[in-house]
Every structure is written in structure tokens, then in C-alpha cells.
């Protein structure tokens, strides 16, 4: 005889579908999709507003974290060991960063982050996600053909550079630590932070420009 344990089944169900957005997120999705469908508002209008705030609020927090990791080896180690814990030193913890993993680019490795299912993203450190990150095309292609996607972002990788693609989940989100650009020796963390771009921390940019 099989005994059914409703709680166990419920827990398993929730675990398997951990991408299920929160109740308010679903209420907003319902409103947004209905309003767009009925022609009350244009999707572009909503996206443009969000993008504007994405730039305004933007990824400054992530940039500070990356710059600190370049200048403070002990912090870098803590960041790589447990990013969710390490960023508490900046007071940046939030709902979406409890389980944050930092992955480092090296001379022979490049990291690229995607959320194939929806658009999980470390909002607390990178601000709003860019529109392309949420697009079906990026979500589908980043895993299947990461090098081609990177080419479209202007990143050409030699065959000697390995590409790692990280598929975000509701439980685990990723922050790419780009390589520190040459010619920045002696710079302090604040000056370095200005060089770090949002795309570099997602992995769609590799070589940061020294300005």
C-alpha cells in the first residue's frame, strides 16, 4: 500500500517548481499581460521606463563589489567562497542575493550568465535586468551557442578560452567577476569601480576599457 504524505508531496512540488514567482509577482504579470493584450499600454512603454531606472539605479553595487575583489585578495576569497555572505559587508543583502555565487573570469575561462526559464537575476547588486536578458532569444541561445551570442555582443573568444554558462535559478544567482584591466595598477577601488559595466558582470562583455 502506498501512503500519501500531503506535506511531502507539497514540498516536492514546490521544490521542483521553485521558479514559480511570488504571489505579488504573479499578480503583476497578470495585470501587465492583460493591459498589453487589451492595448491599454504598450509593452515598449513599460520596458523603456524600467530600462531608464535600470540605468539610473543600475549596477553600481555590483561594480563596487568587483572593484573591491580586485584590490583586496582576502575579500575576493570570501566572495568566491560565499558571495551572499561576503556582500553583507557592503550591506547589500536582499531577497535575491541570499544565494549568490561569484564566478571569476581568468585568462583561459569566460563566464556567461543566463536564466533559461525566466529571468532570475541578482537585482540587489545589479539593479534591473536589461531587456535582452529577459528575451526568449537570449535565454534559449546562451546555452546552445554561447560563442555565437558573445560574438553578437562584440566578444570574440579564441578556442583556447573555455566558456562556462551558468543557468540561474530562483535559489542561485550569479555574478561574474571580470578580469582587472591592465594599466590600472595603483588605482583605488572607487576609481576601478567606474570601469566595471553591467554586461561584464553578466558575462556579455569581457575586456573592460580603461578610461
Amino acid at each position: 500500500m502506498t501512503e500519501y504524505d500531503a506535506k511531502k508531496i507539497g514540498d516536492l512540488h514546490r521544490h521542483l517548481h521553485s521558479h514559480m514567482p511570488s504571489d505579488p509577482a504573479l499578480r503583476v504579470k497578470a495585470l501587465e499581460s492583460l493591459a498589453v493584450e487589451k492595448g491599454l499600454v504598450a509593452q515598449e512603454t513599460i520596458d523603456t521606463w524600467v530600462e531608464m531606472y535600470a540605468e539610473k539605479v543600475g549596477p553600481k553595487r555590483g561594480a563596487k563589489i568587483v572593484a573591491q575583489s580586485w584590490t583586496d585578495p582576502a575579500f575576493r576569497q570570501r566572495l568566491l567562497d560565499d558571495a551572499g555572505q561576503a556582500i553583507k559587508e557592503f550591506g547589500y543583502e536582499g531577497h535575491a542575493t541570499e544565494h549568490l555565487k561569484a564566478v571569476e573570469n581568468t585568462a583561459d575561462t569566460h563566464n556567461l550568465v543566463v536564466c533559461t526559464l525566466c529571468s532570475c537575476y541578482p537585482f540587489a547588486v545589479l539593479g534591473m535586468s536589461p531587456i535582452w536578458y529577459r528575451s526568449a532569444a537570449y535565454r534559449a541561445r546562451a546555452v546552445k551557442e554561447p560563442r555565437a551570442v558573445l560574438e553578437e555582443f562584440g566578444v570574440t573568444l579564441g578556442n583556447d578560452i573555455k566558456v562556462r554558462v551558468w543557468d540561474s535559478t530562483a535559489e542561485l544567482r550569479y555574478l561574474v567577476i571580470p578580469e582587472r584591466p591592465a594599466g590600472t595598477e595603483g588605482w583605488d577601488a572607487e576609481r576601478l569601480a567606474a570601469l566595471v559595466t553591467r554586461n561584464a558582470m553578466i558575462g556579455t562583455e569581457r575586456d573592460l576599457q580603461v578610461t
Partner: protein
Amino acid sequence: MHAPEDPLKPPSDHFAEPWQATILAMATALIREGHFTLTDWATALGNALARAETDGRPDTDETYFLAALDALEQLSERAGLTNAQRAERKADWEDAYLKTPHGQPVVLGQPEQGVG
């Protein structure tokens, strides 16, 4: 918690979750399209925030945005989005999330997996 000076600005310089940004984006767009006025929005949001305060909710951004969502739902009724429509659409989204295997984008009207 009190009614903000500019009801279309986020309460802090940071959104904890994207749905919070979408609420303010939608309110802005619906006002621009003439479905309700800025005054309507300020009043509805102010009332929702007052209710949250009366209910003893914590004075946090989360409380703010939940109140903003209540206000947006209430005002969107005027634009023809009824409670029943919203409930049905929300259930559709839940269904789509449940039926979509990892590795595929979530879209509405997802067919049942493994059938056919």
C-alpha cells in the same frame, strides 16, 4: 508610513524585485494613456498605504509596493481589467510555470508536457 510627495517615484533608489519596478512603470504608462489621472493614483496609493499602516504592516519597501499593487489593481478596474479576469490570468501564469520544464522559456498557453 505616509503618502509620498511623488507617487510615481520608487521609495528608495533600488528595487528588490522586478515586479516592483513594473508596477510603477505600468502606473506611469496608464496615466500617460489617460486611463486614470496622477491624482487618482496618488489618492489610491495613499489610501492603500494608510490601510497598510492601520493593519500594522512594517514600514518597508515591500509594504510600499504591495500597497502600490493594490492601488494599481483597483484603478485598472476602471480601464476594464476586472477582478475575475486578473484571477483567471494569474492562474494561467501559474499553470504555465508549472508546465514549463527547466531550460525552456515560460509562455502562456504552454501545452501539457509528455502528452501527445
